[in-house]
């Protein structure tokens, strides 16, 4: 399967507010509120402004979090990226 590249919403488009176990994200473009749980906020933060594919994202997250015990996280990250795309918080680069 090809490892597609994605790009997170541009800086300033989202307002991210952690609320305990949930994180509320306000998308200024759509005026929609999204409620997400980990690892969605971490993924968005790790993506930053650049386009990145699942392999690059896994590497970035591994640098910040202990993912060794998780096995291959790439299929999970691909699913989460698809969900973030459906919410409009991430788009295909």
């Amino acid at each position, binding site marked *: 399967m090809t490892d597609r590249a994605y790009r997170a919403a541009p800086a300033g488009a989202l*307002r991210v*507010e952690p*609320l*305990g*176990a*949930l994180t*509320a994200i*306000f998308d*200024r473009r759509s*005026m929609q*509120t999204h*409620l997400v749980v980990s690892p969605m906020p971490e993924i968005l933060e790790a993506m930053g402004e650049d386009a990145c594919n699942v392999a690059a994202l896994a590497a970035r997250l591994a640098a910040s979090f202990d993912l060794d015990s998780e096995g291959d996280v790439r299929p999970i990250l691909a699913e989460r990226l698809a969900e973030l795309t459906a919410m409009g918080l991430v788009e295909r680069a």
Partner: protein
Amino acid sequence: MRHRTRIAVGPVQFRIGSDWAEPVAALESLYAGYPRDEMRPADATVRLFAARPWRRWLRPSVHIGGDFVVPDALPLPLSMGLLAAEMGMNLQVALGWRRHMLLHASAVAKDGRALIMSGESGSGKSTLAALLGEKEGGGDWRLMGDEFTLIDPAGGDAFAFPRAVSLKNEAIAEVAARVDAARLGPLLAGTPKGDIRHLIPRPEAIAAMHEPARPALLLFPRFGGEAGIEPMGEGEAFVRLTEASTNYVALGEAGFAAMTRLVRETPAFGITYPDSAAGVALVERLWAEAAR
């Protein structure tokens, strides 16, 4: 329209017009103690009208209109004209108000701090607020409202909307036993919401209706079952209050900011209670122990 009046509840100035005299007379009696300012422009318009001219007399049925309408809403018989007026007023505020974030919640205040109670119909939020507002001896609670609580998006303060309290079914006898009969409206029996009787808030609550209060405690009551207290996280309170807000979406980022601030700064609990006395006791206990 033939019959009209103006009523100010909290920051909302209503203009109410009716094809019949009865609903306007009933409103003027319930709201006689509220401040009146005929010169102030109206914020919301409610119209009570007959669908056909002859229906003013023949089996009169009251349609509810105004700035906003609910299509296909069934009319009410003229004997329930007061309920129609109240529903019309709620509807205009719920759909039209933008100056504050609106929570479908009751509220009482003490020492400039607000206790906000949100719950579905039947949760007892109105009854608890009414009973606290009428409490003997410890009667220093000010009723802010039984239906809507307004949150200032900029500062975060709660503002009152102390319309006449809509007592339903069992709550009618419970409250009627404690208050002067002159403060109760007519009994509206067999409405779509059951029996309804309105309670005029205490004069102090009406006089203080423009005074803000700082949100200090958020409660999500549920009537029935054993008495219990469940602390609620910020995220769950956020979800529940966005569902309980009629204008959260319309306010955009201002609503988002006001809501995140409210749930972060205000401790929240779910409570269950078997009867009103137990409910009031739980509320007082949490206020003493957990309110900010």
